[in-house]
């Protein structure tokens, strides 16, 4: 039954793992795939439902063109061939949250096949072939024990458009698998086809894994892993399962073809109680939907809408703005951030400064307020305005960060905040000299100590001057003055 791998210990001393991933991605359309209900997340249960997604007698599916377009966009981004004709099928099985008793999906004639994706990890590259991308509808949600002793069903999600992205088993380590997921998610986010949120369920992953002796080209028996709700859990589950398979085969046993559930709490995998029969989906072409035809014109028009993809953009940004690799990676981690950075950098003559500001204070603020911010409401030109005020010494860097926060809160420009709050650094030498003299006079002992070698007291004097000036003294000027005066 299992693949042709033997069980001798010698063979298994050098073992390679073979991993394929299936990703289900919810498409960010306003309507469901086969009916016009809203796909909005979080509404009261069973309120975004209609005869079609309830599976009522007499209801019929119709196709959402927006979903088709997004699916094509995703398929093109992964280098797939778009098939001019693809066919919807019925995948028949029984489950309480599957209203029709079948899922409308695609099987032998999917929308797209034969793509590829390069995964980067630790300086190495892994080419992963994409076997297929097809469209299908999501099922509803079953919740257990929300009502004690019962399972309850909410069909709001039933009918949401999904694409399923299936890779060939070209990944070789659990870490690679995680990297693949992160980088695929990044592409999908760049395309804006999905929220890609594993917590909300808009991105779900199943894994297939087997092992074989290094150098062998035959496939071992694979197991299927489910129930991993984060990328790190995918990596953990794969690690555990690979280990389990290695131990099994080393002790002379065979790997059985099983479906396993990842138990995060226990850090282990356990088999699902499946019966062979339940896998007979009795696929046949969906008689309620004629074939889907995608003309070359249509797919080329969609190809023209492809944005610059993450790795390409990263390379270009790095080169164009002469940034370190690290900066380029962070700045292009999301499309919105990349757009923002470039808009800022274009308006300045110091892209590295722009990078420091965006990677630093801007990102920190976004992170801090991640609940409220979508995109960053401080416009690029306004950020540039702030950076200019710091560069020309009107305010210090420290004050600048504070100003940024206030710009966000008040929705006004940097100049406005500085003016309103009187934050402009004081550089009037007469005033500065007065403060310096005040501080030095009030701290004669420390002056003596400084002059006898305790140079680090400079920081103390600086602090005192800043205190006297309520933070507004230009530190650069103060430093110079202090230096001059302490000399004498």
């Amino acid at each position, binding site marked *: 039954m299992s693949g042709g791998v033997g069980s001798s210990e010698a063979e298994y001393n050098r073992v390679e793992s073979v991993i394929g991933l299936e990703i289900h991605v919810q498409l960010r359309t306003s309507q469901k795939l086969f009916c016009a209900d809203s796909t909005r997340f979080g509404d009261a249960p069973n309120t975004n439902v209609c005869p079609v997604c309830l599976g009522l007698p007499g209801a019929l599916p119709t196709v959402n063109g927006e979903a088709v377009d997004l699916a094509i966009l995703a398929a093109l981004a992964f280098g797939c061939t778009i098939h001019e004709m693809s066919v919807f099928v019925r995948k028949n099985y029984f489950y309480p949250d599957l209203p029709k008793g079948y899922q409308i999906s695609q099987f032998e004639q999917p929308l797209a096949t034969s793509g590829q994706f390069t995964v980067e990890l630790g300086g190495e590259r892994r080419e992963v072939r994409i076997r297929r991308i097809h469209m299908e509808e999501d099922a509803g949600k079953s919740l257990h024990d929300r009502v004690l002793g019962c*399972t309850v069903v909410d069909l709001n999600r039933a009918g949401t458009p999904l694409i399923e992205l299936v890779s060939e088993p070209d990944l070789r380590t659990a870490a690679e698998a995680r990297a693949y997921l992160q980088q695929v998610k990044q592409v999908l986010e760049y395309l804006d086809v999905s929220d890609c949120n594993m917590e909300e369920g808009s991105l779900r992953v199943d894994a297939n894994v087997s092992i074989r002796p290094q150098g062998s080209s035959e496939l071992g028996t694979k197991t299927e892993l489910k129930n991993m709700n984060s990328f790190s859990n995918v990596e953990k589950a794969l690690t555990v399962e690979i280990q389990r398979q290695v131990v099994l085969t080393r002790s002379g046993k065979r790997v059985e073809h099983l479906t396993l559930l990842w138990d995060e709490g226990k850090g282990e995998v356990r088999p699902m109680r499946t019966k062979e029969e339940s896998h007979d989906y009795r696929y046949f072409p969906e008689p309620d939907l004629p074939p889907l035809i995608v003309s070359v014109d249509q797919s080329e028009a969609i190809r023209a809408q492809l944005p610059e993809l993450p790795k390409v953009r990263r390379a270009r940004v790095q080169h164009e703005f002469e940034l370190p690799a690290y900066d380029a990676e962070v700045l292009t981690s999301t499309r919105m951030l990349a757009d923002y950075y470039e808009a800022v950098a274009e308006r300045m003559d110091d892209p590295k400064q722009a990078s420091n500001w965006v990677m630093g204070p801007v990102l920190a603020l976004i992170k801090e307020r991640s609940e409220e911010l979508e995109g960053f409401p401080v416009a690029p030109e306004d950020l540039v305005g702030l950076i200019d005020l710091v560069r020309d010494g009107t305010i210090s860097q420290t004050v600048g960060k504070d100003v940024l926060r206030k710009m966000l809160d008040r929705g006004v420009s940097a100049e406005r905040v500085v003016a309103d709050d009187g934050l402009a650094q004081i550089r009037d030498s007469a005033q500065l000299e007065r403060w310096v003299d005040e501080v030095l006079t009030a701290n004669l002992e420390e002056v003596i100590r400084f002059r006898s070698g305790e140079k680090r007291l400079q920081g103390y004097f600086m602090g005192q001057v800043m205190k006297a000036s309520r933070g507004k003294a230009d530190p650069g000027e103060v430093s110079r003055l202090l230096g001059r005066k302490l000399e004498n």
Partner: protein
Amino acid sequence: MSGSKDQRAVSGQDVRRIAELARLRPDQEAVRQLTEELNGILEHVRVLETLDVSEIDEEDSLTLDPVLCRDPKIAPDELRGDAPRSIAPDWRDGFFVVPRLPALDQSDSSGDVVE
């Protein structure tokens, strides 16, 4: 109507397996009767085996016009009355209710996280 046991297209065991796939539970007498009836029908259908279908290739379906995508302006068909609550056999707090599914049972679900 049914041929000899050896030539039967379906056995009683097949019938039980098919019934399970279809979520039906015929009793022993019904299984016996269904086995006989299904074999009778399949015997009648057997003539298809001799039909030469070679001139039809895979793509030859009853040519329908290709699917037209839905007009996004069309609203969902409104549900009258208090549906789906009014038609549900068991309903609580806005949900359809069924007896609790045993943990680890059933293969493909929707991909829900199992608790």
